[in-house]
């Protein structure tokens, strides 16, 4: 299929699909604002949901396989439509196919797709393309101290909400004069209001008391100033939630000395990258934290820190916890809460077992052992499962 026909096909699908949405689930087109009216993408084929699965690179394929295994074992009514994206190819057909599949199914689970940063700028980051095309504007990462994982800081419970589509990641760069490169950071009012609203909605829905905006408005007065202004505007509509702001360098300093002071944090794209990685490191590393990318119409779930894990690929040493917890977030999104909680309980009980800890947590366990243990935990709680 040529690129042009793919685009026209995806355009046609969007037209058809959005029509369907307005007809069948009128409320779904409203933003996540009215969470109580939100309905997941319609399940098809007799109560079974179809979810796009993009294995990605590095440890992605093996972890995706484990998720499929686990779902089949627990008889979760989810079928995966696997779409492979080859990061070595120059053409964007693969990622466009993946995007089309996500538009079709409404929800996806993905591994990280590698970006070779030595390639010229014409090769765009596949992950970034996916996020911006589908307008997955909110990246949510919930960092919590897990029992059984030894870290320097305890009692951490931070929800990080990061603007996912603009800011420094706009990929707008040019070289006007040889040797001088300009990179544009775009901040818009609409997107800042949108992400601030999302943050406050989430805070209200989860009963959290405080939202902190992270910025650098003392230096980037217009850009981050606009972001901060939008956050303040939205904050005035939520009187029960305390709003404050903090400069990003101070934030990182506070995070490594006293992370317990933070509750919900909202920030533009790049600071979100830094802060979410710092928080993930604080609670135990990239293998433990799941991440979710929400848009108005679509949701994509992945590991929180978006690592490909190239160096440990196919060695059965990767920590599957992040990916498995991401799949639980996926189930919650599909309103399959019973399955989600069952799996989450099993996963958390496995994480608390020190002897099963994988290398990133300082142990010698293997990926398959961890998954096996989760399956055992699920089976022991009684629901119908396949045999191991």
């Amino acid at each position, binding site marked *: 299929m040529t690129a042009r026909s793919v685009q026209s096909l995806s355009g046609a699908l969007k037209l058809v699909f959005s029509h369907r949405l307005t007809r069948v689930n009128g409320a779904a087109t409203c933003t996540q604002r009215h969470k109580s009216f939100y309905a997941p993408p319609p399940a098809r084929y007799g109560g079974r949901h179809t979810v796009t699965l993009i294995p990605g690179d590095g440890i992605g394929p093996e972890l995706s396989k484990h998720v499929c295994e686990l779902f089949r074992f627990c008889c979760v009514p989810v079928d995966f439509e696997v779409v492979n994206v080859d990061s070595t190819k120059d053409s964007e057909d693969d990622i466009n196919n993946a995007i089309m599949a996500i538009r079709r199914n409404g929800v996806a689970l993905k591994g990280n797709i590698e970006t070779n940063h030595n390639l010229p700028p014409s090769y765009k980051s596949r992950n970034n393309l996916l996020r911006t095309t589908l307008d997955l504007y909110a990246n949510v990462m919930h960092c919590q101290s897990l029992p059984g994982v030894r870290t320097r800081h305890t009692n951490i419970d931070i929800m990080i909400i990061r603007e996912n589509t603009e800011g420094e990641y706009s990929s707008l760069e040019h070289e006007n004069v040889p*040797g001088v*490169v300009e990179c544009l950071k775009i901040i818009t009012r609409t997107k800042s209001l949108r992400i601030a609203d999302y943050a406050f909605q989430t805070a209200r829905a989860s009963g959290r008391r405080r939202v902190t905006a992270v910025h650098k408005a003392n230096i980037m007065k217009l850009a981050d100033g606009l972001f901060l202004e939008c956050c303040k505007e939205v904050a005035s509509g939520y009187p029960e939630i305390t709003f404050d702001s903090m400069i990003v360098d101070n934030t990182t300093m506070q995070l490594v000395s006293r992370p317990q002071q933070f509750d919900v944090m909202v920030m533009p794209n790049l600071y979100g990258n830094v802060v979410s990685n710092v928080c993930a490191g604080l609670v135990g590393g990239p293998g433990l934290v799941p991440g979710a990318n929400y848009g108005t119409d679509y949701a994509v779930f992945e590991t929180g820190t978006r690592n490909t894990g190239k160096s440990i690929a196919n060695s059965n040493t990767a920590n599957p916890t992040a990916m498995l917890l991401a799949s639980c977030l996926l189930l919650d999104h599909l309103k399959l809460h019973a399955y989600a909680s069952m799996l989450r309980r099993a996963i958390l009980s496995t994480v608390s077992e020190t002897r099963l800890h994988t290398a990133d947590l300082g142990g010698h366990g293997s990926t398959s052992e961890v998954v096996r243990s989760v399956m055992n935990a699920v089976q022991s709680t009684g629901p119908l499962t396949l045999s191991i």
Partner: protein
Amino acid sequence: MAGNAWRSMLSQVGGATKPALSAAFSRRGMQTVTLIPGDGIGPEISAAVMKIFEAAKAPIQWEEKNVTAIKGPGGRWMIPSDAKESMDRSKIGLKGPLKTPIAAGHPSMNLLLRKTFDLYANVRPCVSIEGYKTPYTDVNLVTIRENTEGEYSGIEHLIVDGVVQSIKLITEDASRRIAEYAFEYARNNQRSSVTAVHKANIMRMSDGLFLRKCREVAENYKDIKFTEMYLDTVCLNMVQDPTQFDVLVMPNLYGDILSDLCAGLIGGLGVTPSGNIGANGVAIFESVHGTAPDIAGLDMANPTALLLSAVMMLRHMGLHELGSKIQMACFDTIRDKKVLTKDLGGNSKCSEFTDDICRRIQDM
């Protein structure tokens, strides 16, 4: 342990400017240093440092200057000419915290100083302090941050109502300069590796240019290991295991965030030294904490940051023994825990802390 690490690591800061300094010493053996006390707690901590240096009989002649911005000919804001002349003559400066006025109409003082002397490299050695416990022990790294361009160029535009663009500028020259400085520093201070921190997967052209220059410069320094790492990976690994990092070199914004992150690892801005190296051999050492107006004048301030920056300055000037002496006295006082200021966990006065250090120096 950390004490030895401090001693060996801060042995010779700023290798590139050594020849000029011996000339400055020939005059009566006294080196003139331009001292900028600053605002808030600035004057008290500067006085504390001067007192300690006097007790140590340091061959330093302080020239106190004020750098409140004045409007020069042509309407451009600049620092007073006598301050500039003094700095150009002495080439070494020690600066306390400067207040950034909100509505004074002129840019921040720090920015002004940076532009006036083309202070292109900000060097912050972060080493865990024995006696001041943080969850992170054995931190021993140096962050070298490009200080003139990058995201902080201050070029912003309102495109249409509700859309703002901020320009991040990366140039070949500045990237090469900072990379060269980083490798020079690593070589002169016996550091084994330099890591370039970037986000070239997303900002392909800008960070790509920065990376390319670092790689080019690395070719001339084969004795030093060069690695590249994404900013997010560095953050992730830094909070889990800071011992894996040695010298980090990066553009402005990442440098700002990472250097403060590393300062947080060792105990905060109140104990972190910092040096700014300029293009013409000028070097200004400063304390990076704020002016703390709430405790100004109450004799509660902690002079450690300014003192350690001053020690960095001594080493830069080649006075290693003296620097080590003063540093050891400072660390011994902190380790003893008897006269700590409030931010270090005690409730002594600044003057008591200072006197204790002076006493230790005199006893040595």
